[in-house]
């Protein structure tokens, strides 16, 4: 279906990433947000709080991030589309409720505008140190979907995408921004509502007597009911059977958790969204995401200008990781190495190493946060990697 035009501020704007994210949520049909103030994410809910009452929705400032991340789920079960936004320390507090949303298959969106950590860290400065937490932060086995925008335009586009994926897979979806992307101001084009595709909630069409809340459909995703419609359904974070009733049966547990993982993992290749530059003949591939990808592209261009065949692979959807595409690239003849640039001391590089399986050298250009990389630094590493291969030859 198409977006509700009332929520779509169609036109050309000059927005920062945080504001663009709020507009993305409104365009996606989100009319409920709960949050707790935290730098550098707060501007998202400030914008939302200003705009949403005019659209008949609400922003609720809760007492902490635990409350915010579960209040949105209550709103979802009442029928709303809902999201919350936070940064590092708040993201840590939300982990239990990411697990609850995964287990209860509650579609919702959580935005993390990353700042330097651990702990209170660098509240006003960028980092990409929550990437593995995004993947593994809640306890137990589950699969997650996470997006990594690198511009205010993408903060708008990918927030809509996050809501759509949340509904399609009935899962929490994470938007992993960073302080720079959140606070940089650029041109943002908001298309008219009839050009924005919205995935509606997958409500059951069955009558209450025939409805089993966790009986999966062909794509392993069950259809939802909402409170107040006479379905008298039960939702629990305990391991549950298809009726939604708690069980300690080991086989039922295995069946449920495998399904929660498989409904996303089986679609990993279909979900893959990457941006590629100069990869056709690349000897050195730089893999970068979020703000770092923009610095990395500059470094790649500098290398090309020097005659070095460098290329850029940018995962836009970072979880599930674009494993198949990376394996494909890594097995190509003529590739001398992969450089992973990220603002942490080695997170996504682990995933790259796993996918590459030792076929080519993988190097990390990382630091603990507080600033973006300098293109010169990445350029020099690319040159080093290219030269090392020349010497071997």
């Amino acid at each position, binding site marked *: 279906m198409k977006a509700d035009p009332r929520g779509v501020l169609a036109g050309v704007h000059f927005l920062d990433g945080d504001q663009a994210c709020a507009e993305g949520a409104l365009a996606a049909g989100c009319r409920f947000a709960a949050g707790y103030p935290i730098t550098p994410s707060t501007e998202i809910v400030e914008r939302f709080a200003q705009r949403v009452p005019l659209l008949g929705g609400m922003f609720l400032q809760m007492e902490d991030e635990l409350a915010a991340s579960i209040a949105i789920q209550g709103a979802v079960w*009442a029928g*709303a589309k809902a999201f919350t936004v936070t940064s590092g320390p708040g993201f840590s507090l939300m982990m*239990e*409720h990411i697990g609850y949303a995964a287990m209860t298959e509650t579609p919702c969106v959580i935005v993390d505008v990353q700042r330097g950590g651990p702990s209170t860290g660098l509240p006003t400065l960028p980092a990409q140190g929550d990437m593995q937490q995004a993947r593994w932060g809640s306890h137990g086995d589950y699969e997650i979907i996470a997006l990594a925008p690198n511009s205010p335009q993408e903060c708008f586009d990918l927030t809509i995408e996050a809501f759509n994926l949340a509904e399609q897979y009935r899962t929490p979806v994470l938007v992993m921004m960073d302080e720079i992307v959140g606070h940089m101001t650029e041109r943002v084009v908001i298309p008219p509502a009839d050009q924005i595709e919205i995935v509606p909630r997958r409500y059951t069409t069955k009558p209450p007597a025939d409805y089993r809340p966790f009986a999966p459909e062909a794509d392993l995703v069950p259809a939802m009911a909402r409170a*107040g419609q006479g*379905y008298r359904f039960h939702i629990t974070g305990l391991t549950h059977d298809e009726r939604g009733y708690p069980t300690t049966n080991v086989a039922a547990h295995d069946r449920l958790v495998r399904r929660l993982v498989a409904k996303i993992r089986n679609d990993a290749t279909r979900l893959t969204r990457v941006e590629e530059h100069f990869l056709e003949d690349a000897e050195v591939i730089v893999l970068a995401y979020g703000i770092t990808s923009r610095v990395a592209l500059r470094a790649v261009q500098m290398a090309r200008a020097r005659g070095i065949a460098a290329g850029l692979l940018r995962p836009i959807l970072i979880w599930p990781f674009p494993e198949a595409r990376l394996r494909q690239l890594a097995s190509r003849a003529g590739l001398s190495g992969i450089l992973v640039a990220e603002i942490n001391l080695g997170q996504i590089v682990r995933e790259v190493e796993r996918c590459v399986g030792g076929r080519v050298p993988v190097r990390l250009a990382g630091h603990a946060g507080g600033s973006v990389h300098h293109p010169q630094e990445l350029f020099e590493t690319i040159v080093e990697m290219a030269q090392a291969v020349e010497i071997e030859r």
Partner: protein
Amino acid sequence: MSTEVYLPPNPVEALLRTDRMPHIWCPGCGIGTTMNCFARALQQARLDLDKVVIVSGIGCSGRVAGYANLDSFHTTHGRAIPFATGLKLANPELTVVVYSGDGDLIAIGGNHFIHAARRNVDLKVICVNNFIYGMTGGQVGPTTPATALTSTTPYGCPEQPFNLPYLAESAGAVYVARWTAYHVRQITHSMVEMFRKRGFCFLEILSPCPTLYQRRNRLGDGLEAMKYYKEASVTRHGAPTKEVAISFQGPILVGKFVDIERPTYLELLNQQLARTLEAQYTGCIEDHVRS
């Protein structure tokens, strides 16, 4: 020779998920008693049961949601109130009941409890207070009376417990009552009153935990607890909540302590937005939820 025994249908059966029986509660536990009262109160209040939602946290009392034949949510530990807040505000036509234990609502969930009361979110909060963490094996909680023995205060509890009605009133609750599992008619009556009232309503029900609290403190079984409730309870409607604190095996003041009028969060929000935005404000979220 065979004897046919006629068993009349249980009047609350329609409100129970009978396919989930037997329940997990111990013999002599008071939670089932409170749930019986809850079912009868729902019948007496003549609510549209399709519009009643029950939200629980974690613990023995948190299991009530799973046995109630309503739309029901068993949430995370301590977070029933914020979940219920989102649910109620996104669809105000629902009657939202939070049914949980003292540890869940007042220890791990204490922050949410006071803030929801302060905002006056229209929630009916029922707290089954058994003085202890039952599900995890009888540890000390924020309501454990001073000197009582628990598995983590084996030499006696040194702490002062919360006086829950006082806490609820101070934080802004518009309705505050306390009964014990002995007072089944009064519990039912209070629940009916809560269903009919708008705003943050709080009902504390003292309830025996024979397996852990009673046994460890050598207080006998569930029946002994009922005798204590019967003999120690003094009904004092309107008692100042500051004076209703509970001591170990001491007197218990019960009754309806608070019943006041105060606009709910949603009413205040709608007023504020209508006043500020005037014609631009077209109403709250429910239209979107229903569409």
